């Protein structure tokens, strides 16, 4: 059916003598030739593939698979080692922290003791100095009182003399003493 239609189309459109009648696909005289060369081709390709190409590619793929598996195993190993190292590091860090805390505590205690000692010493010194100073101040105050008394008596005697009356020194002293006490 297809032959007839294409043959008709071919007749209508083209008049070239080279044109094959209808479909060249249905020209049975060339079938033997095509089939022969096809079989030759397929056999050649089959032998090339099965003898050389496919085993080689299979080997390459297997080798690559092996390499990848090895590398993954190695990576796994390294990862484990890294994890162990990290754990050891963490542990060392924690130990160091505990030790540091202990040392700090100790130092703090020591310093506290020293500070207390120094404070006590300083307090004692301060109180000693204070007592001494108080004594000195008392002495100064007493001598000042005495001086005031003497000055007052002298002044009183001078004032009495200036007023023109003469009074006994003992009397004046008594009056001044009474005034000062009052």
């Amino acid at each position: 059916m297809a032959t007839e239609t294409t043959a008709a189309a071919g007749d209508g459109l083209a008049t070239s003598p080279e044109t094959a009648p209808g479909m060249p696909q249905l020209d049975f005289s060339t079938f033997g030739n095509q089939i022969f060369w096809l079989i030759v081709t397929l056999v050649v390709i089959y032998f090339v593939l099965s003898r050389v190409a496919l085993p080689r590619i299979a080997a390459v793929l297997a080798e690559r698979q092996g390499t990848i598996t090895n590398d993954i195993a190695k990576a796994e190993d390294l990862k484990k080692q890294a994890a162990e190292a990290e754990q050891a590091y963490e542990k060392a860090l924690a130990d160091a922290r505990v030790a540091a805390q202990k040392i700090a505590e100790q130092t703090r205690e020591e310093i506290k003791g020293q500070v207390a000692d120094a404070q006590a010493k300083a307090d004692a010194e301060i109180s000693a100095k204070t007592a001494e100073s108080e004594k000195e101040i008392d002495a100064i105050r007493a001598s000042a009182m005495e001086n005031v008394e003497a000055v007052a008596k002298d002044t009183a005697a001078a004032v009495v003399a200036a007023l023109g009356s003469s009074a006994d020194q003992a009397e004046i002293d008594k009056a001044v003493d009474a005034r000062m006490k009052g």
Partner: protein
Amino acid sequence: MATEAGGEESGLVFHPMDQFIVSPLFGDGPVGMFTITNVTLWMALAILCVVGLMVLGTGGRSIVPSRIQSVAELAYGFIYKMVEDITGKDGVKYFPYIMTLFLFIVFANFLGLLPMAFTTTSHIAVTAVMALAVFLGVTILGFVKNGAAFLGLFWVSSAPLALRPILALIEVISYFVRPVSHSIRLAGNMMAGHAVIKVFAGFAAIAAISPLSVLAITAMYGLEVLVSFIQAYVFTILTCVYLKDALHPHH
């Protein structure tokens, strides 16, 4: 073909089928069985391409592949996985045969897309031989592997008993139609695409239509590139399916 189009400018001349003519490479004699023809040339080129890709391309055997080697590995993995997925583990030993068919069809199709090329897979003689080889091989293999149990392929045990003879008849018919559809699908696709491109090329002789014609040829060419690969894929996967039926004839 092309020279004629240039010679006759007056009218439209279509010779869409001339590209499929088998002619001797040397001389003008008749085409005998062993004559060296354009079929020989383009099949030889297909062999060269296969050797170039699969042998020379993988010459490095490198763990980290070069470009050509990775294409070869891709082709290998593609077909290997197809065979393994469809036919199962026991089908893997037929992998080289299927790989041979696939590589030949792929390279014949793509070489046929070169301008002025001859497309060997557009000939029913070529595809029919391959399809018949698959059909006979699979049928013989089925009987050798399973004996009479291979006929269970036609006896659909999951259907109601009354329907089974009718189904068996349909199954037998479809089984024998397989090589026909298998071969005509490939040859028809290749022939139709090339003929259509040629017809569009014929229209290019008219100046007013020629831009459109060139665009149409470009579009058809893109489509043909797809079809070339898809038809090789389809031929291969159907071969795998038929092989599976031979190895495991139970539905």
